[in-house]
């Protein structure tokens, strides 16, 4: 079943289109990373899908519920908004219990839900402390807990790692990973952390200037947009010239030369576009070994989500 579907979703502010024709579908249990530079339309997209912002045109459905049934959608989703504010003079437990009650829980159920969720996000011991004493990372984890008070089927997290130190980022991303793996929840995660998206997300949606720049499974997007076309060889420094000569004679290699600024024995290789990456790399390695050139290290360059991002989002 589709957890989220959007069709030509558009939001205009006068002549400016903050989001223009967003169309995508996400199956249950998937984790979608929503990427894009500042102003790309990530937050606008999330706000429309969470019923906070009305679309100018287009349609969407969340958990099978059409976008017109706003209150029904809100009952089935959990959201951590971008830069969410928290009541400083309330404890984490009071905060969660209040939101659980807004989702129809009785007072006792709300308290129990609050305690359980505080434990799940690692705040059990600080549940009765005032939120003003929480670090930013703790507040973000509290926000994730708040997004779960209604046992949602789809969770939207807008920049949950913004402003966090590396440890805080790791904690939040681990919590996101657990959402999908342990609860089977569908997650939409907006973030700037490309490497982390690679670790946590199954799918990726890259937005640029309000339009979809890339969409699909992480591996597919990377393969389409940023298949590695270069490699780096390290050999015996005394055999560097031999390596370059062998490589230049291959159809699989477009160019080869001693790596400028590299360590002794390093050769930069530009793979040919006539073969796919794996075949070209295999041909180059085989030729080197046949020629008796020692291969200390051979690594493909590129092929990361960050490369794909830079490819589809021009500066």
């Amino acid at each position, binding site marked *: 079943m589709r957890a989220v579907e959007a069709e030509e979703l558009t939001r205009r502010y006068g002549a400016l289109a903050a989001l223009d024709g967003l169309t995508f579908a996400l199956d249950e249990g998937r984790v979608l990373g929503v990427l894009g530079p500042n102003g790309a339309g990530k937050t606008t997209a999330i706000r429309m899908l969470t019923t906070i912002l009305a679309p100018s045109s287009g349609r969407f459905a969340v958990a099978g519920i059409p976008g017109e049934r706003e209150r*029904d959608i809100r009952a089935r989703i959990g959201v951590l908004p971008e*830069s969410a504010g928290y009541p400083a003079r309330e404890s984490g437990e009071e905060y969660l219990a209040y939101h659980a009650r807004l989702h129809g829980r009785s007072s006792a159920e709300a308290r129990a839900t609050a305690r359980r969720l505080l434990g799940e996000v690692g705040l059990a011991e600080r549940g009765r402390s005032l939120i003003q004493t929480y670090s930013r990372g703790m507040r973000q984890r509290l926000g994730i807990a708040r997004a779960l008070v209604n046992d949602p089927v789809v969770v939207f997290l807008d920049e949950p790692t913004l402003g966090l130190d590396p440890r805080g980022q790791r904690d939040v991303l681990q919590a996101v990973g657990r959402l999908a793996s342990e609860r089977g929840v569908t997650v939409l995660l907006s973030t700037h952390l490309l490497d982390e998206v690679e670790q946590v997300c199954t799918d990726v949606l890259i937005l640029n200037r309000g339009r979809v720049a890339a969409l699909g499974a992480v591996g597919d997007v990377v393969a389409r947009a940023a298949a590695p076309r270069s490699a780096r060889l390290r050999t015996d420094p005394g055999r560097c010239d031999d390596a370059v000569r062998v490589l230049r004679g291959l159809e699989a290699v477009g160019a080869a030369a001693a790596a400028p600024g590299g360590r002794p024995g390093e050769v930069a290789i530009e793979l040919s576009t006539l073969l796919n990456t794996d075949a070209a790399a295999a041909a180059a390695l085989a030729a080197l070994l046949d020629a008796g050139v020692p291969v200390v290290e051979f690594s493909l360059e590129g092929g990361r989500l960050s490369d794909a991002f830079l490819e589809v989002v021009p500066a």
Partner: protein
Amino acid sequence: MSVWAVVAGRELADLWLRGRGFALLVAYSVLLSATTYLVATNQAINFIEQREAVGLTLQVAVAVGALLALLAAADAVSGERDRGSLETLLLAPVPRWQVLAGKGAAALSLWLAAFVVAVPYVWFLGHGIDLVAVPLAAGLAVGTMLALAFTGLGLAVSSAAATSRVSLAVCMLVLLALYVPTQFPVGATTGWAAELLQRFNPLTAGVHFLGRLVIDGRGAVEEASWLAAPLVFVVAAVAASVVAASRLRLTGVRE
């Protein structure tokens, strides 16, 4: 428990246990004490009559109590907007009018607390001439009407305003416009035009009604026509807040 009651419970705790409710009430008590002291001493040297002293204190209590409700209501939604907590509230699957009703109930609690604080002052000034029950009943009725209207106005403005600063500024401007006629010199408050102005202004009409009952000793039914403007104000302000609730958006009217 219904949603508005859940919201009201949280807002009441926020206002009275964690917030500025008591600070506002203390400031109000100081003002009322000063007013009572002045009217009591003036009365002792026969500058004003005892009935007038009761009426004046009651009018101050009603006007300031309603103002406190307005202040709380004006911050109710725009304050959440400022603190970045409105989005999570809007994401709750509840009718938005119930959210505003809960916040309004908390704002009204300031008026009720102000009224309770005024009771001993009125008793102190009026018990000697057996003028306690009527002023208190009339004060509660008029004050509740004005507080309800000001709360509705505050919620409507707060829902539409982008920041609480804007919301408070607009509400204070409206309040000042309503208060201005109370400061007119006596000569400017006579004649048909002045009476019309007084009757159309809900604040002056309500205060005038109190004066007629408490100072002039008139009957409530006889003077009931003075309550028309406050009543219309209540209906209009509450309707405005209901409309504002249905149109409540994350960024106010800018969206």
